[in-house]
């Protein structure tokens, strides 16, 4: 009898997703889909609002990465007031960068310590009651404590700049609305009330050592699990090094061949198209030149480490070199290496925050620049989960007439579907009984991309994940539903 497995909701991801696995009468997987079934539509309802509201409104897309939306929108709105990224005041540029790296630091800490670590510490087949952060707290208090404090550090950076940990306001058209308070700087440097930035660097190095050990012990699993060829997209600086706030877009294919050669972010429309499928609200972006079938790209930590020539901070670069040396591969196409890559980025963010916190310019009052108003603005940044695009058009009165958002998780849509398919084919297909551990492996594959489904579809409300098993007649045979 044919069967269909549905995992709905997929847990420990940011958002609500549904996985369906279709099986034939012999228990062989025929097909699988990662559906995104929530919809909110910020792109539509922001139309008619004045442009200066966009950075504040769009950050409500998400409670995890609002800073990314705030800053991507701010970059676009800067252009509407005639200020390109290179025209920002040095203080505004550095404050935005500090906030952005603080955001990535806290978001990556959230993902690793809260969402991914249970799978790594207890195994993919561990009982469901162990696969959560409370179990991590029970069995590894030090890891849990450090995770909490690292996330807090990043959130405090955001609060110091924007007034709130979530949904604060920092950027204004052409700059920033307030400078950095010297007392706040002392707070992050002196270590009295919060472990200081040097401690963040030290802890980042410690956790990288942990993941290296994990890779040593589990090499075969990590090298093979959800490994498949794909393109990789991200941002680099003028010399091809990792850049997360502003740079050029670079993409490579699964062998390392350049498919997008360091192009200006303002030109993204020349190079990308978005496909749609009837079974998901999330779109499927791809490179026009390469086509829908092979032009899709992974984004995020794994992709960023694949595309960059180097990381421009010394400790993270050393770790990147160790990471590359470990695999011996020019391009890493293994999904679970995302965790190691993410931790190297945590270290990079800590190093950049350290540089910026020691830079007196973040306390300058030269915050806002002006220029000649335009009718179109594009802002692209590297958000925690990958390349994030905000594009606005306005009328002569400054009212938004068009908005296009290409969210990181959207780029990873195809990759997550392929990852699910890999697990379906290699773990579930023709195995007889479907165990909870098998279904968790579907979630592990998705979770590695740290998908933010609420961002990708701009959804609202509870965000669980569901897995369904469906037979050849289209009947639901089994399902698992978990709250997110």
């Amino acid at each position, binding site marked *: 009898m044919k069967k269909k497995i549905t995992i709905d909701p997929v847990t420990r991801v940011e958002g609500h997703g549904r996985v369906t696995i279709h099986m034939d009468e012999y228990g062989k997987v025929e097909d699988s889909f990662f559906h995104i079934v929530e919809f909110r539509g910020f792109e539509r309802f922001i139309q008619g609002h004045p442009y200066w509201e966009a950075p504040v409104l769009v950050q409500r897309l998400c409670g995890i990465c609002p800073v990314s939306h705030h800053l991507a929108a701010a970059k676009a709105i800067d252009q509407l007031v005639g200020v390109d990224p290179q025209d920002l005041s040095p203080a505004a540029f550095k404050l935005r960068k500090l906030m952005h790296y603080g955001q990535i630091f806290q978001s990556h800490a959230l993902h690793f310590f809260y969402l991914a670590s249970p799978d790594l510490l207890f195994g993919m087949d561990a009982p469901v009651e162990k696969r*959560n952060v409370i179990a991590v*707290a029970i069995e590894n208090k030090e890891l*849990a404590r450090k*995770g909490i404090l690292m996330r807090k550090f990043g*959130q405090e950076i955001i609060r110091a700049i924007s007034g709130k940990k979530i949904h604060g306001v920092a950027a204004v058209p052409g700059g920033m609305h307030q400078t950095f308070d010297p007392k706040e700087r002392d707070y992050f440097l002196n270590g009295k009330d919060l472990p200081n930035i040097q401690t963040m660097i030290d802890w980042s190095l410690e956790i990288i050592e942990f993941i290296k050990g994990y890779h040593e012990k589990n090499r075969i699993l990590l090298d093979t699990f959800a490994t498949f060829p794909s393109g990789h997209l991200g941002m680099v600086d003028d010399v091809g090094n990792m850049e997360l706030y502003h740079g050029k877009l670079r993409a490579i294919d699964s062998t390392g061949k350049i498919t997008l050669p360091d192009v200006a972010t303002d030109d993204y429309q020349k190079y990308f198209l978005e496909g749609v499928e009837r079974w998901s609200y999330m779109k499927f972006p791809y490179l026009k030149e390469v086509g829908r079938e092979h032009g899709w790209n992974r984004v995020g930590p794994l992709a960023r480490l694949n595309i960059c020539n180097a990381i421009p901070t010394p400790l993270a670069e050393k770790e990147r070199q160790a990471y590359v040396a470990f695999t011996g591969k020019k391009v890493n196409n293994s999904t679970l290496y995302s965790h190691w890559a993410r931790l190297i980025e945590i270290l990079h963010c800590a190093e950049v925050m350290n540089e910026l916190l020691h830079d007196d310019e973040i306390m300058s009052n030269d915050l806002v620049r002006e220029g000649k108003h335009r009718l179109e603005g594009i802002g692209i940044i590297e958000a925690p989960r990958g390349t994030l695009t905000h594009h606005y058009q306005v009328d002569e009165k400054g009212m938004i007439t068009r908005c296009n958002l290409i969210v990181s998780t959207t780029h990873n849509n195809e990759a997550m579907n392929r990852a699910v398919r890999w697990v379906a084919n290699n773990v579930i297909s023709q195995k007889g009984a479907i165990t909870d551990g098998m279904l968790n492996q579907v979630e592990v594959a998705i979770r590695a991309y740290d998908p933010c489904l609420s961002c990708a579809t701009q959804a609202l409300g509870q965000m669980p994940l569901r897995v369904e098993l469906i037979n050849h007649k289209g009947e639901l045979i089994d399902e698992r539903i978990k709250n997110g």
Partner: protein
Amino acid sequence: MSELKTDSRILIIGIGNNGRSDDALGWNFVDEYSSLKDIFDVEYRYQLQIEDALLITEYKKVIFVDASHKEYENGYSFYKCIPVRTEAFTTHKLEPETVLWLANDLFNQSPEVHVMAISGMEWELNLGMSDAAKRNFDNAVSYFSQWIKEYRDSVKV
């Protein structure tokens, strides 16, 4: 206003979402008392997370306020929170009891925690509480205002 003992500040955390009808009860309750800056520090949460365990360790007394699906007599319940270790939970949503347990387990701190649970009825996307929730809210505020008065008297220098 009388001076209060230095360690008498209370953290009051409203949980909810004011875009979802009666789920605004927690935030509205905190709004009601946010101006009493001599005694309260306030926080707003969509849901409690693990780092709130660290936050509550900075206080001796903490009050969580949340809308409840339960129908309480008089529309609310104000009760002392007991730490509970729970393993079956949703990653992004902890109960006050679990947050207190984590504060104890991870940071060796046990603040005195109370929960103000106020009965709500409607949860769909909407600004503004239902009439029934408003009545429950008023009852809870009435009770809590008296509670504050008594607390102030107990912590006067």
